[in-house]
């Protein structure tokens, strides 16, 4: 039998990768297989709960540094590609990391890593027993897989992987509010992924292939096919995933219910996976689809950002304020998408990175507010400036960052978005975006004002439970790390802006993406 597998009568050289693969190429799959295998390992160690945080932390740390190495390599020599099981596309599934993929994966792995630090104190025995760490690792694997895959159906599979692990995380704790939020979250996200699957079905029917590089080539050659319909299905599905108006209602209904670490992960990662998929599929695979639906996208962008800001202003629960601010950020990313220009896409990508970092940090900080004051209600929080000035300073930086003030990470994407929408002649879109970010600033500034600056409530001092030493380490360090990165991007914007530009160019002109894959001719 040995000779049958080695000497085949069919010429496999056109279908197989011949070049030897170096260990460094495995960096492309590390962000997926590392967390996936270690998630399984955590499941095997169900009873040894104290080692699970260590496993998760070490795995995600390795993934983070692997992603840095991968990013350096991609910025130097272009996209990195790996064909699973040697099968070249379009026969097999492949991973392909370009600037956009690696930028998103890198940011996502940083956020997952700091969430593990934070969870050391905030996730109790119950949460661990019901599998917080396996779910967290699987969620990271799913998110990274969605960012890295070069196959449309594989993208759907990773969507489902992250969906299932997010289901597991959102009901962890089993409170009534969580069940209520989970019902809405689960059903609406399921509809969105099914719509995505329908879009895949049509794409396969039209082109007979699902590899992204291969599809890009075939779509460029195609003529007279109903691409608008397919593009609209994809835009609809991903806008629902990204919680863009009017498909946003699952987000404010669910994001404030689970454990605060889970909320931070969701707010940072899940909606951005939708934005990424929108850029990759509608932007790169179906060029021109943003032009076709520009008018709709402009409305979506303006209304999402305004609705998010207004909702934040009208909420009393701090976590709900943050949930609406996630929406407002999604609106800003849609501004970049709707102006249909390289600059706009660059702004959208940069805003996505900024939003991942800031929203994660804000949710984690909200957890500390809840821990110290015992409440998330704006009516009853206060006195934190007196209790913990350093934490107050961190939160103030986050307030400035999300409002887009210099010198923090929100400033650069905001400048790019404003300028690109002005250049595109959509003056009133610029106005809507600026108004919404002004309202959002008032809403988040008010949180700082009440939770930190206010000392007493109707004449009585607000009771504060100070953090123990361990808790201060576990809670404040992750926030401080994220704030340091946010300040870093604000002060030394060059690397991030450079990567975002490379990502935007990769979306508009995917030739480097295609040559790195070199699909077999039809």
């Amino acid at each position, binding site marked *: *039998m*040995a000779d049958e*597998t080695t000497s085949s009568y069919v010429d496999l050289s056109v279908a197989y*990768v011949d070049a*030897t*693969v*170096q*260990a460094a*190429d*495995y960096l492309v*799959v590390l962000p997926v*297989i590392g967390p*996936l*295998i270690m*998630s*399984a*390992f*955590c*499941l*095997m160690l*169900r009873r040894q709960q104290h080692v699970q945080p260590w496993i998760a932390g070490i795995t995600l740390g390795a993934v983070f540094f692997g992603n840095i190495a991968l990013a350096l390599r991609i910025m130097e020599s272009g996209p990195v590609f*790996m*064909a*699973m*099981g*040697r099968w070249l596309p379009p026969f097999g599934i492949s991973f392909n990391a370009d600037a956009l993929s690696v930028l998103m994966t890198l940011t996502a792995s940083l956020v997952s890593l700091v969430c593990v630090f934070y969870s050391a104190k905030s996730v109790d025995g119950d949460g661990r027993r019901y*599998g917080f760490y*396996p779910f967290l690792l699987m969620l990271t694997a799913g998110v990274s897989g969605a960012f890295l895959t070069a196959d449309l159906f594989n993208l759907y599979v990773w969507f489902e992987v992250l969906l299932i692990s997010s289901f597991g995380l959102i009901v962890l704790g089993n409170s009534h509010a969580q069940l209520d939020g989970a019902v809405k979250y689960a059903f609406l996200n399921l509809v969105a992924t099914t719509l995505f699957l329908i879009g895949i079905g049509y794409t396969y029917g039209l082109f007979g292939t699902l590899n992204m590089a291969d599809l890009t080539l075939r779509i460029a050659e195609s003529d007279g096919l109903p691409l608008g319909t397919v593009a609209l299905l994809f835009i609809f599905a991903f806008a629902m995933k990204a919680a863009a108006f009017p498909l946003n209602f699952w987000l404010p209904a669910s994001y404030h219910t689970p454990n605060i670490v889970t909320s931070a992960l969701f707010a940072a990662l899940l909606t951005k996976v939708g934005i990424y998929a929108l850029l990759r599929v509608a932007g790169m695979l179906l060029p021109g689809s943003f032009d076709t639906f520009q008018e709709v996208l402009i409305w979506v962008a303006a209304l999402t950002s305004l609705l998010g800001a207004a909702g934040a202003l009208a909420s009393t629960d701090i976590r709900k304020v943050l949930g609406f601010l996630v929406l407002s950020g999604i609106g800003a990313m849609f501004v970049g998408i709707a102006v249909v220009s390289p600059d706009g896409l660059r702004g959208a990508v940069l805003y996505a990175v900024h939003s991942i970092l800031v929203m994660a940090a804000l949710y984690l900080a909200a957890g500390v507010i809840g821990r110290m004051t015992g409440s998330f209600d704006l009516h009853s929080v206060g006195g934190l400036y007196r209790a913990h000035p350093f934490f107050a300073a961190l939160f103030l930086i986050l307030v400035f960052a999300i409002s887009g003030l210099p010198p923090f990470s929100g400033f650069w994407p905001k400048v790019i978005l404003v300028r690109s929408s002005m250049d595109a002649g959509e003056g009133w879109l610029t106005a809507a975006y600026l108004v919404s970010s002004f309202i959002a600033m008032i809403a988040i500034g008010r949180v700082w004002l009440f939770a930190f600056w206010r000392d007493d409530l109707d004449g009585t001092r607000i009771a504060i439970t100070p953090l123990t030493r361990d808790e201060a380490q576990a809670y404040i360090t992750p926030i401080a790390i994220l704030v340091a990165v946010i300040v870093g991007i604000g002060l030394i914007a060059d690397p991030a802006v450079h990567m975002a530009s490379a990502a935007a160019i990769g979306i508009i002109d995917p030739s480097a993406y295609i040559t790195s894959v070199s699909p077999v001719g039809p």
Partner: protein
Amino acid sequence: MNTVIFRALAPYLTTLMMLFSVFVLLRGHNEPGGGFIGGLIAASALAIYGISNGVPAVRRAIWAHPIHLAGTGLFISGLSGLPSLFANVPFLTGLWVFPTILGVELKLSTILFFDIGVYMVVLGTIGGIALTLEERED
């Protein structure tokens, strides 16, 4: 479902199905079969045993929590892709060895371990769901 006939028959049926599931798993590479369908057969075997003799009996018989099984399976499947790292070929590439033990040539491959992992994942998750739902009926 608690008839005498069923209760007398179920252990034999379960044994037979378990054996058959392993057979299906092992013949899977070049002929119909494989880890997924084998795991489904094994999970139905557990479900049948659960219906006839009660869920606690099943849990005692498999002595590992179903989620444990699923985790182990996922672990094996994930690891089966890694030997290709040392052979300088892409992730998940099938690698074969043909050792001769006692005069019989064995065909071992990383694909086989991947399939065994899939078998355990399916057995663990589907079996786990089935047992949980059967427990609720009591």
